[in-house]
């Protein structure tokens, strides 16, 4: 997260940079979000070194050991696998899918919005109509429909979620570029003989970064939620590989035996999604000039 923030900040003059950072830090929930994401990221990224057990190690003797037992901080599941270790490894999958899907929405949304607005004409009309049409499908239906016919993996999940959620970015980019198109520095780049793709990437991209950054953060949150829905319903990441969503697949029966099993993965999803949402909110307040004036 902090990398993205620094990148964003570095293209602004120093005074504005300090202002954005200060306004962001004033947003307490956003700061809490950054801290939580950092913790979740450390837990997930460092799972191979930090996890107390092998996440797939089956210990029938320790089935349904409750949380806070010796050696099992969060207990063990129906096969005696360590819940904490599984949560950490699941976090690798769930967070990666979220971030990778967000990157896909960025690339697709930016390409469609930018080239449509920049090139104009019938290409623009066609691309924007495609955006409208895609917005008509409830994304959960579309995702499940596609997921049922594709072998699920980290990559395919991220691609599918990304390909069903790029529309908002495309619209933001489109609107921004229409506003930028008549700016003098774009005309200057055109006169200098720069090709369209270069103008889009070098001149337009940096100037549309603020609202895209906000949308991307919220998209990450949404992608993590969608992954959990699909995996919960059994069409996403397949066991024994753990994801936060598929750890809840048996939640209904877990509740009758050991309710904690169904609580922790849900908490992890909620914390991750809420953190990204809070960060997005904080970024919006910090970057939006209208809020700035208020």
């Amino acid at each position, binding site marked *: 997260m902090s990398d993205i923030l620094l990148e964003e900040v570095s293209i602004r003059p120093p005074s504005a940079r300090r202002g954005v950072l200060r306004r962001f830090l004033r947003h307490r929930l956003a700061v809490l979000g950054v801290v939580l994401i950092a913790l979740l990221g450390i837990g997930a990224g460092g799972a191979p070194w930090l996890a107390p057990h092998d996440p797939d190690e089956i210990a029938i003797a320790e089935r349904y050991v409750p949380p806070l037992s010796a050696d099992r901080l969060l207990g063990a599941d129906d096969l005696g696998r360590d819940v904490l270790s599984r949560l950490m490894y699941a976090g690798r999958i769930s967070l990666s899918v979220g971030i990778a899907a967000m990157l896909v929405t960025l690339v697709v949304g930016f390409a469609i919005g930018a080239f449509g607005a920049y090139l104009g004409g019938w290409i623009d009309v066609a691309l924007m109509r495609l955006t409208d049409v895609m*917005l008509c499908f409830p994304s959960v239906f579309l995702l499940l429909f*596609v997921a049922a016919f594709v072998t699920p993996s980290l990559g395919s999940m991220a691609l599918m979620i990304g390909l069903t959620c790029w529309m908002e970015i495309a619209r933001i980019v489109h609107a921004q570029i229409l506003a930028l198109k008549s700016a003098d520095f774009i005309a200057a780049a055109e006169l200098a003989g720069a090709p369209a793709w270069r103008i889009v990437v070098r001149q337009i991209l940096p100037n549309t970064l603020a609202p895209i950054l906000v949308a991307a953060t919220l998209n990450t949150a949404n992608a993590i939620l969608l992954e959990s829905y699909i995996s*919960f319903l059994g069409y996403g990441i397949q066991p024994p590989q753990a994801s936060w969503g598929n750890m809840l697949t048996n939640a209904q029966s877990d*509740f009758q035996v050991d309710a904690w099993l169904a609580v922790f993965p849900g908490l992890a999803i909620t914390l991750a999604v809420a953190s990204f949402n809070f960060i997005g909110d904080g970024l919006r307040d910090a970057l939006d000039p209208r809020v700035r004036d208020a």
Partner: protein
Amino acid sequence: MARYLRNRIGQSLLLLLGVSVIGFALMHLAPGGPLAVYTLNPTVTAQDIERVKHQFGLDQPVYVQYVKWAFGLVTGHWGYSFFGGRPVGSIVLERIPATLELMGSSLALALIVGVASGILAAVRRNTIIDYATATAAMLALSLPTFWFGLLGIYVFAQTLGWLPAGGIASTGGGGLLDRLLHLLLPMLVLAFVLVAQWSRYTRSAMLEILTQDYMRTARAKGLGPARVLLGHGLRAALVPLVTLAGLQLPLLVGGALVTETVFSWPGMGLLFVNALGMRDYPVLMAILMVGALVVVLGNLLADIIVALIDPRIKLTHV
């Protein structure tokens, strides 16, 4: 007004055309095509598949297939389920009332609670009430619906035993009270996410309106705070709020799918998930189309209502 309506309806028809093209493309891009389910079955020979292909017209050029399929969609011939062979139209239609019951009641609840809390947060801006509402709304948006539903079942059905764990009514029917008890938990779960959006949206709309001159005028005329807020404030906020109702439809339809699955609510969402397990293509396609249709028609309806209540639109488009 009439011209505006004609334009909007024309746009919606174009959208539906696009939706049908993408839906059809998805069906044919899926690995193995619509008959993939049969290729997995060892008792079905290659000749059988050829014969079925011919029967379903799948050996014809793609554009011919599309026209036939789209024509069937419009005239109500939605094909037959792969399992049991019943017409898809009646399978889907009989599920619609249950879904409408769930979606309608959740939307109504979300609207009342969301708008009220949004107004309260705007009026008490930057107080503890405002912050608490904003934080609660954000958490509600972040909660996985299915997990929230499962927790609800655990607490209110399994532990306390106050409410049924799922279904639309007790076996063998049951009275109105029985149906209401069954509705309560799924309705609350589905409404939860929607409330958050309504609350945030109402708050920002009201914040803008509260600073307007006509609000001061209304107060200066000596109107009571309720008349000022509801009669003048909320009246002006209606336009963005009706638009939100339209925009929220994909979330509502998608949320209904997840909620129905968790609560075994016999609506379209549960039908979709069951059909997915059996790869029942015609049923899946039909529900995908109905879902998109609901979204397109809902947005059209929202725009028409906005045009009716916002005098500015009549002026610019007549």
